[in-house]
């Protein structure tokens, strides 16, 4: 202990503090990541241990002519965009309402944040029960309200399957936006609104001229984090639909996972995830650039 205390007085102390976590991260992230990129250039199938040679860009070329890849790419874009837009809208609504700090809102805040902390497995089956074609309570309510004539198999119909999964994802993910946007709203000084009100700006004008510009950074950060999370995690779709019916809800991350988990074709699965990663990187960079440019315009 004494020796450690003395060690803490040297100028290398902070590096020593960082060492354990750095070793962990290099071991369980950096090395597997590089290894994974290497696998994408090799033939690797667990079912056929004899293979293992380098095949160059073979998997990437195969992807180009793989129709499922293009469907999955299209579905990923649609699914992520729809979910993020819906979650942002609901999150903004929730944050604005919570930010008024009326008595009793603390309880509402707890209830509204709760879904974000629930496991995908439970969230998925819970909604499968709610939307079930035979015993789903949502079907029952819609029929009673006269919206539907008969019960509907939401997840089995290619026309509604993707929309139904977006609804479940929005339920699960919008509290994240509510959380970040509420913190952003709290950091806007009250005086700005008072000054605007004196100048005769109504609520819509205040929203457009004060709230949204001040929230721009928070919105950008939240959208980026959420897009990354959504593109990367196939959990919910794996539980709800498994990509079906047909390939109606097949997305890139799920396709890559199934290629690895069901077909044990690790080479092709790795290539798929590398492509996914590159697309994400391009999106993130472009998005950050764009939101900076518009921010600069606002300052003039």
């Amino acid at each position, binding site marked *: 202990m004494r020796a450690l205390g003395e060690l803490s007085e040297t100028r290398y102390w902070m590096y020593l503090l960082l060492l*354990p976590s750095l070793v962990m*991260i290099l071991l369980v992230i950096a090395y*597997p990541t590089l290894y994974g990129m290497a696998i994408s250039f090799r033939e690797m199938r667990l079912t056929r241990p004899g293979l293992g040679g380098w095949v160059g860009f073979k998997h990437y070329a195969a992807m180009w002519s793989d129709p499922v890849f293009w469907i999955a790419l299209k579905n990923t874009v649609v699914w992520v965009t729809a979910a993020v837009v819906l979650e942002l809208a609901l999150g903004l609504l929730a944050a604005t309402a*919570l930010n008024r700090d009326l008595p009793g809102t603390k309880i509402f805040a707890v209830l509204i944040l*709760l879904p974000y902390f*629930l496991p995908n497995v439970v969230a998925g089956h819970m909604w499968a029960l709610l939307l079930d074609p035979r015993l789903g309570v949502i079907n029952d309510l819609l029929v009673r309200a006269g919206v539907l004539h008969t019960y509907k198999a939401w997840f089995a119909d290619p026309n509604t399957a993707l929309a139904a999964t977006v609804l479940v994802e929005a339920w699960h993910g919008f509290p994240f936006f509510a959380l970040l946007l509420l913190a952003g709203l709290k950091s806007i000084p009250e005086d700005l609104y008072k000054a605007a009100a004196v100048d005769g700006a109504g609520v819509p004008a205040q929203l457009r001229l004060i709230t949204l510009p001040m929230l721009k950074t928070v919105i950008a950060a939240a959208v980026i984090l959420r897009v990354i999370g959504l593109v990367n995690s196939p959990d919910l779709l794996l539980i709800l639909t498994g990509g079906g019916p047909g390939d109606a809800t097949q997305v890139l991350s799920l396709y890559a996972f199934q290629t690895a988990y069901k077909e044990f074709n*690790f080479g092709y699965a790795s290539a798929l995830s*590398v492509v996914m990663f590159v697309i994400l990187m391009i999106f993130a960079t472009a998005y950050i650039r764009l939101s900076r440019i518009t921010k600069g315009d606002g300052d003039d």
Partner: protein
Amino acid sequence: MIESKRRRRVIANIATYLVLATLSMFCIGPMIWMFLTSLKYEADIVTQTMQYIPRRVTFDHYVAIWTQSGFPRLIANSLVVTFLTVTICVATGTLAAYAFSRFAFRGRTQLMLGYLVVRMFPAVMMIIPLYVVMRGVGLVDSRFGLALAYTSFLLPLFVWMLKGFFDSAPKELESAARIDGSTRLGAMVRIVMPLARNGLVASSVFIAIAAWNEFLFALMLTTGQGSRTWPVGLQLMVGEFQLPWGVLAAGGILSILPVIVLFAIVQRTMVQGLTAGAIKG
């Protein structure tokens, strides 16, 4: 003028409560429905006319999931994996968060950004090589191996969150202790840690919930009873035995119970830490 302003405020307040009530219902309605389903007899679940309030109540489904499946075993495995993950994160992450918070050194910004960027790596991209590597060293189907895998995406998160809490602990007390002859290590353990105790608890709970809930890594990296966690076990039960809805609902309620309790206890500090990290970063 004043009268109309007042009326407008009342209308706005009513609208606010309406929005909050509707959103809350949207959020917890499904959970309430699952809870009600878990209490109904199977015959009352599959009836022609929907029963909104169960006419009779039973705890059979809870007994069934606990005694007739490997559920206790799954829960025990999940507890071990969660505990190991939190231990690894706390042991290594606390030191890193402290270093990032208190010292200026070469490469600090780049390293912190690095800790952030690794979170962007697709889980699928890491699962495959992790599986191959862990199979090579005999860590597939091991609870320790799974905990190690969880560290890959939870440790960076933990460091960022905890750094925020360390940042907001006052530096004056630490300086005073140093002047009184305490070493850096002594100041860290005796002054800063106690000050940031709530933050440490909240960050650990956040990590614990994430590890407890995780599904994808567990599905790929566990193959047998020995290390399978509850999300995978529950999912496989649904697929294999065509699990009755009541039993599934009971399993769901049991497994989210610890999450809800922990969330309710530390939610304020946890929310603070989550937002602080995101706003500044």
